C-alpha cells in the first residue's frame, strides 16, 4: 500500500522519461501522455481513498526513520491536492492533444507536462521542508521551460520576469530553510512543528521572523499582494493549455505551502501571524479583482482573477477555524476546476471568434450555444453564485469570518465577490451576447479530431463545478475532515514520527 504514496511521483516521472526517450515519435508521446495522466489520476484517487479510510499515511524513503531521512506523508489535504493535480493533469493532457502544435510536441512538451505534475505532486506529499524546496524547483524549472517553449517574443518577455522573480523567491526560501535547520536541527516538518511548539530549542520571536521569511518566499509563488507581479506579466503568453495548467496548479502549490507551514509549524503566535495573513488576504482580493476589472483581454482578466481568488484561500487560512479551513480546502478544489475550465473555454473562444481580446470577439451566444453554457456555468461558479461550487466555498468563509467577528474581511470578500460577478459578466456580454464586430466573421468550426480533445475536458470540468455545488455534501464533509486534521496536527506528527518520537 505504501506504494500509493509514491505512485503520484513515479508515474509522471516514468511517463516523462519515456516521452523523453521517444523523442522522435510524436504519436507515441501523445499516447503515453494520456495514459500516464490517467494513471496518475487513478493513483491519486487511490491515495485519497486510502487516506480517508485509514487516516494519515507516511512512508520513510530509504527506510531511514524520521526525522533523519525524507518522509512522504499524505493527510487528507495533501491527498485532495494530489487528486486535483491528477485531474488537472488529465484534462490538460487531453486538451493539449487538440491545441498544442506539432513543433512544441516534438520539443518535449509532454515530457515537461508530466515533470510538472511530478514536481507538484512531490510538493504536496513531502513531509520535509528541504525536499519541498527541491520539488518547488522541479516545478519551477519545468514551468519556466513550458512558459518559454515556442520562443515567441511575448513568451520570452513574460518568462523573463516570471523567472527572475521566482528565482528571488527560491533564494529566499532556501535561505529560510537553512536558518530553520540551524535553529532547530531538523528538516522534517512534523519534527519542526514539535520543536517550535515546545519552544525550547528556538525562541518564539525568532520563529516568527522565520515565519515571515517563508511568508514572503511562498507568498511570491502564491501570488499574494504585493508580490504577485510575475503572474499577470506572464500567464497570458504561453498556449492556453499551459496557462490553464499553471493557473490550476502553480499558485496553489504556493498556497498549499503557506497552509502547511501556518497550520503545522508557525502556529505559536497566531495573533500576529494570522492577523497579518488576513490583512494580506483582503488586499490580495481587492487588487486582484481590480486588476481583472481593468482588463479587456480574456487571459489577462482571468490571470488577475487567480490573484483575487488566492485572497479567499488566504482568508480561510487567516481565520484559522475548522470551518474556515474547510471552506478554504473546498474553495481550492472549486477554484482549480472552475478557473481551468474558464481558461480552456477561452481557448475555444479564441479559435472560433478569432481573438482573446474582448473588443475583437462576439456573437458566440448564437454561434455556439453549447460553448456559452460551458462558459456560463464555471463563470457563475467563480462569481460564487448558488448553487454552484463557489457559493458554498464563499458561504463557509463568510460564516467563519462572521463567527470570529472579523467583519472587515467578510465585507471585503463580499464586495470582491460582486466585482468578480461584474468581470465575469463582462466576458459574457462581450464574447457571447455582443455581435461579432465583423458582421461576416466566419466562426471556425472545430475539426472533428480537435473537437473531442478540446471539449471533453471543458465539459467534464463544467460538470464538476455543478456536481461540487449541487451535491456538495460529500466533498464538504471531506474538506471538513481535512480541516480538522490541519487544525490538530498531532495525528500528522504521530504518523510521521511514530508513537515514541
Amino acid at each position, binding site marked *: 500500500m505504501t506504494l500509493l504514496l509514491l505512485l503520484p511521483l513515479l508515474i509522471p516521472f516514468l511517463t516523462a522519461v519515456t516521452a523523453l526517450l521517444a523523442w522522435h515519435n510524436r504519436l507515441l508521446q501523445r499516447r503515453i501522455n494520456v495514459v500516464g495522466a490517467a494513471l496518475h489520476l487513478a493513483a491519486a484517487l487511490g491515495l485519497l481513498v486510502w487516506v480517508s479510510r485509514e487516516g494519515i499515511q507516511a512512508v520513510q524513503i530509504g527506510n531511514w526513520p524520521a526525522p533523519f531521512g*525524507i518522509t512522504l506523508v499524505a493527510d487528507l489535504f495533501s491527498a485532495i491536492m494530489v487528486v486535483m493535480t491528477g485531474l488537472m493533469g488529465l484534462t490538460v493532457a487531453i486538451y493539449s492533444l487538440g491545441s498544442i502544435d506539432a513543433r512544441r510536441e516534438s520539443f518535449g512538451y509532454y515530457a515537461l507536462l508530466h515533470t510538472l505534475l511530478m514536481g507538484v505532486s*512531490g510538493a504536496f506529499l513531502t513531509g520535509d521542508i528541504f525536499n519541498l524546496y527541491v520539488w518547488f524547483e522541479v516545478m519551477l524549472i519545468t514551468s519556466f521551460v513550458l512558459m518559454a517553449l515556442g*520562443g515567441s517574443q511575448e513568451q520570452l518577455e513574460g518568462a523573463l520576469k516570471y523567472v527572475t522573480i521566482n528565482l528571488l523567491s527560491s533564494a529566499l526560501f532556501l535561505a529560510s530553510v537553512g536558518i530553520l535547520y540551524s535553529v532547530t536541527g531538523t528538516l522534517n516538518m512534523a519534527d519542526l512543528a514539535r520543536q517550535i511548539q515546545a519552544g525550547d530549542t528556538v525562541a518564539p520571536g525568532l520563529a516568527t*521572523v522565520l515565519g515571515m521569511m517563508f511568508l514572503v518566499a511562498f507568498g511570491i509563488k502564491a501570488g499574494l499582494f504585493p508580490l504577485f507581479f510575475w503572474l499577470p506579466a506572464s500567464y497570458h503568453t*504561453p498556449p492556453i493549455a499551459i496557462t490553464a495548467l499553471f493557473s490550476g496548479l502553480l499558485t496553489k502549490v504556493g498556497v498549499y505551502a503557506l497552509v502547511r507551514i501556518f497550520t503545522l509549524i508557525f502556529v505559536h503566535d497566531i495573533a500576529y501571524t494570522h492577523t497579518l495573513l488576513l490583512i494580506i488576504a483582503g488586499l490580495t482580493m481587492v487588487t486582484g479583482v481590480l486588476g481583472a*476589472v481593468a482588463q479587456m483581454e480574456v487571459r489577462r482578466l482571468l490571470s488577475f482573477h487567480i490573484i483575487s481568488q488566492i485572497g479567499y484561500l488566504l482568508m480561510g487560512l487567516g481565520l484559522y477555524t475548522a470551518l474556515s479551513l474547510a471552506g478554504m480546502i473546498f474553495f481550492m478544489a472549486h477554484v482549480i476546476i472552475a478557473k481551468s475550465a474558464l481558461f480552456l473555454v477561452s481557448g475555444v473562444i479564441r479559435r472560433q471568434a478569432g481573438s482573446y481580446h474582448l473588443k475583437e470577439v462576439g456573437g458566440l451566444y448564437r454561434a455556439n450555444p453549447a460553448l456559452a453554457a460551458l462558459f456560463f456555468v464555471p463563470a*457563475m461558479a467563480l462569481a460564487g453564485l448558488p448553487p454552484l461550487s463557489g457559493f458554498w466555498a464563499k458561504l463557509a468563509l463568510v460564516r467563519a469570518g462572521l463567527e470570529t467577528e472579523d467583519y472587515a474581511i467578510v465585507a471585503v470578500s463580499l464586495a470582491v465577490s460582486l466585482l468578480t460577478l461584474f468581470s465575469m459578466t463582462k466576458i459574457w456580454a462581450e464574447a457571447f*451576447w455582443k455581435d461579432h464586430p465583423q458582421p461576416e466573421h466566419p466562426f471556425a468550426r472545430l475539426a472533428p479530431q480537435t473537437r473531442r480533445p478540446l471539449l471533453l475536458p471543458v465539459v467534464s470540468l463544467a460538470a464538476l463545478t455543478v456536481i461540487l455545488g449541487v451535491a456538495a455534501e460529500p466533498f464538504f464533509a471531506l474538506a471538513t475532515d481535512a480541516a480538522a486534521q490541519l487544525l490538530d496536527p498531532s495525528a500528522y506528527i504521530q504518523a510521521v514520527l511514530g508513537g515514541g518520537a
Partner: protein
Amino acid sequence: MTIAVLSGFGVALTAPWLQGRLPRRAGWLLILLPLALTAWFAAQLPRVAEGTTLAESVSWIPSLGIDLAFYLDGLSLTFALLISGIGAVVLLYASAYLADDPLLGRFYLYLLVFMASMLGTVLADNLITLFVFWELTSISSYLLIGFKHSYGTSRAAALQALLVTGGGGLAMLAGLVLLGQVAGTSNLSSLAASGERVRASDLYPAILGLVLVGAFAKSAQFPFHFWLPNAMEAPTPVSAYLHSATMVKAGVYLLARLSPALGGTVEWQGLVIGVGAATMVLGAYLAWQQVDLKRILAYSTISALGILVLLLGVGGALATKAALTVLVAHSLYKGALFLVAGALDHETGTRDVTQLGGLRRAMPITGAVALLAGASMAGLPPLFGFVAKEVFYKATYEAPDLPALLTALAVLSSVLTVVAAGLVALKPFFGVRAHTPRHPHEAPLRMWLGPLFLAGLSVLLGVWPALVAEYSVKPATEAVLAGPAKVELVLWPGVNPVLALSLLTLALGAGVYVFRHALLAWARRLDVGKRLGPERGYGRALDGLLRLADWQTDLLQNGYLRFYLITIVAVTVVLVGYTALAEADLSGALRAPEMRVYEGAIAVVILAATYAVTRAHSRLAAVAALGTVGYSVALLYILFGAPDLAMTQFAVETLTVFLFVLVIYRLPRFATLTSRMERWRDAVIALSAGALMTLLVLIVTADPSRAHVASFFAENSVTLAKGRNIVNVILVDFRGLDTLGEITVLAVAAAGVFALLKLRPAQARAPEARAERARTAELQAVPTAEAGADPGSGD
C-alpha cells in the same frame, strides 16, 4: 413540494431541446408544468386556510447545516399561486409573442428556471436555501433582461439589474448568516420564536440593515429603484412576470416573512415605513411623466412596491391584511397591463403613448382587458383594485404613528396612479386613431387569453372578495403575524372617510389626467431626478470603479521588472525586519569578529570582487569579478571542512563562467541607463536587505549549541549506509529523494536550453531587423503566442 420546486429546473433543461424538436407545440407542452403546479397549490388552499402547514425537508449539506427544507403556509401559498398561475399565463403569451425568435427555446429555459427559483424562494424554510433560490432569480432575471442580447442597452440594463440586486443579495447573505447565528436556528418557520433574542442582540441593527438592503434592492425600493425601469429592456412577458408580478415582490415576501423576528422595533418602522413611503411617492410621481408604456407601468410598479413595504413597516393585522390584498390585486392588474402593453407593441410597433390612440376597434379584446385592468389599477369599483385601495387607505388612516402624513402621501400617490392607469388603459384605445409603424390587428389568441383571465380575476375577486380573503389573505396574514387574525374583505364597506378619500382620489386623478400636458411641462422644469438621482450615482460608481481599476493596474502592473523587484525586496525588508526588531532577541548579534589572516584575505577578496561586479563597466570585467567571487567561496568551503562542496563549486563555477562567456558576448555592452538618484535609491534598498540578512546570520549564530540530526548520520553512515563520506551518503542514500528531484531539475533545464535555442517561432525575424525597432507598429500587431499553434498549423 420539493418535487414541485425541482421539477421546474428539470423541465427547464429540456426546453431548448423540446423547442428544437417541436417548434410549434413546445409552448403548449411546457405550459402543462405551471398549470399542474397551479392546480396542486390550489388544491392545498382549503387545508392551509384551516391553518395547517406543510413542511418537507431533505438533507442537503449537513456539514454546513443546510437542508433542502420547504414550508407551505398561507403566505408562501399566496405567492406560490401567483408565481405558478401567472407563470402559465406568461408562458402561453410568450409562445406567441416570441414565436419568430430563434432563441425561444432558451427563453423557455430561463423562464422556467426563474419560475422554479421563485417558487423555491417563497417555499424555502432554510435561510441559506432561500438565498440560493433568491440568487437564482437574480441570475435568470439577468439572462432574461439581456434576452435581446444584440442591443447594448439590453446588456447594460441586465448588468445593472444584476449588480444592484446581486449586490443587495450579498449584503443580505451576511445578514442572514448573522441572523442564523444570533437566532440559533436557520429554519424560517422557527425563527419567530427567537424574535426576542434577535431584537435584543447587539447585532440586531447590523442584521436589520443588511437584510433590508437585500430586500429593498430586490423590490426596487428607493434608492435602488432605478434598475427596474431600465429592466424594461426585457421582452414584455418577462416584464410582466418578473418585474411586476413576482420577482420584485421577493423583497416584500422576505420582509413579511422576517417581520416576526425582526419587525416591530423603532428601527424597523422608521426604515421600512420611510423607504416604503418615499418609494411609493417617487414611483407614482415618475410614472405619469413617462411616454413609454412599459416605463409608465414600471414606475407605477415601483410605487405599488413602495405601498407594500410601507404597509409591512406599519405592521399589525390591518396593515398586513392591506399589504397582502394590494399584493394580489397588483399582481393581477399589473400583469395584465404589461401583457396588454406587449400586445400593443407587438401589433403596432411602438410603445410610445403619444403615438397610440383610437385602437379599440382594431384591438377590441385587448382594449377590454386594458380597460378592466386599468380600472382595477385606478381603484374603480367593483374591481378588486378598489377593494385593495380601500383597505390600504384604512390602514394608513388608522396607522398608529403619523396617520395624517401617511394618508396624505397615500392619496397623493394614488392620484398619480390613476393618471398612469388612464395613460395605459384609455389613451391607446380611445380618442383619435393615431398612425402607428405597423398596421394593427387584434393580438392572437394566446396573447389575449391570459390577460383576459387575469382581468377577469380582478372582476371576480372584486365582486366576491371573501373568496380571496378566506383562502389567501387571512392565512397569509396569520402567517406574517405568527398568530391568529380576523380578516375580512368586502366590496362595499359603507360610507366612511375612507370611501370619501377614494372618491376624492378618482376625482383628482381624472382632473390631473385631463390637464396632464400643462402639469407635465411644469413638472419637467422642476425635475431634479435626472441630475441627482441614484442612477447617476450608479453610473458614477461604475465609472469610478473602472478608473480606479485602470489606475491601480497601471500603477502596480506597470511592466518594469525593477519596480517589481524593488517592491518585493522592500516588502521583505519591512516585514522581516520589523518582525525581527519587534519580536526577536537581538542580544548576542553584536560581537567582535574573530579570524585568521588568510581567512581575512579571502574575505577581502570576496568583498572587493563583489563590489567590482557592481561597478564593472565591461561585461568581461563583471564576469571575471563574478568568477573570482565564486572561486573564493569555494576556497572558503575548503577551509571550513567541506571538500565536496568545494569541488562541486569549482566545477560548477568553471562551467558557469564558460556559459557566461558564451552568452554574455551576445548581449550588448554595459551602459548606464539609470540616473544617479535611482542608483542611490536601489543601493539603499539593496543594502538594507543585505544588512537584514547579516543581522539574521548574527542572531542565529549567536547561540551555536544545538542538537542536530547530524549525530544520527555520523553514527550510522558507516555501519548502516556503508559509506565514509557522510555528505555523499546523505546525497545518495539518507536524502536520495532530494537528489532524484535535483537531477530532474537538471534534465528539465537542459531540455529548456535545447528548446530555447532550437525551437524558434515560425516567422522569426533577424535580431538586427528587430533591433531597428519599428516598435509601435510591432506592438499594435503583436503576433500572438499561439500564431503557430492555432488552427492552421495545429494538429
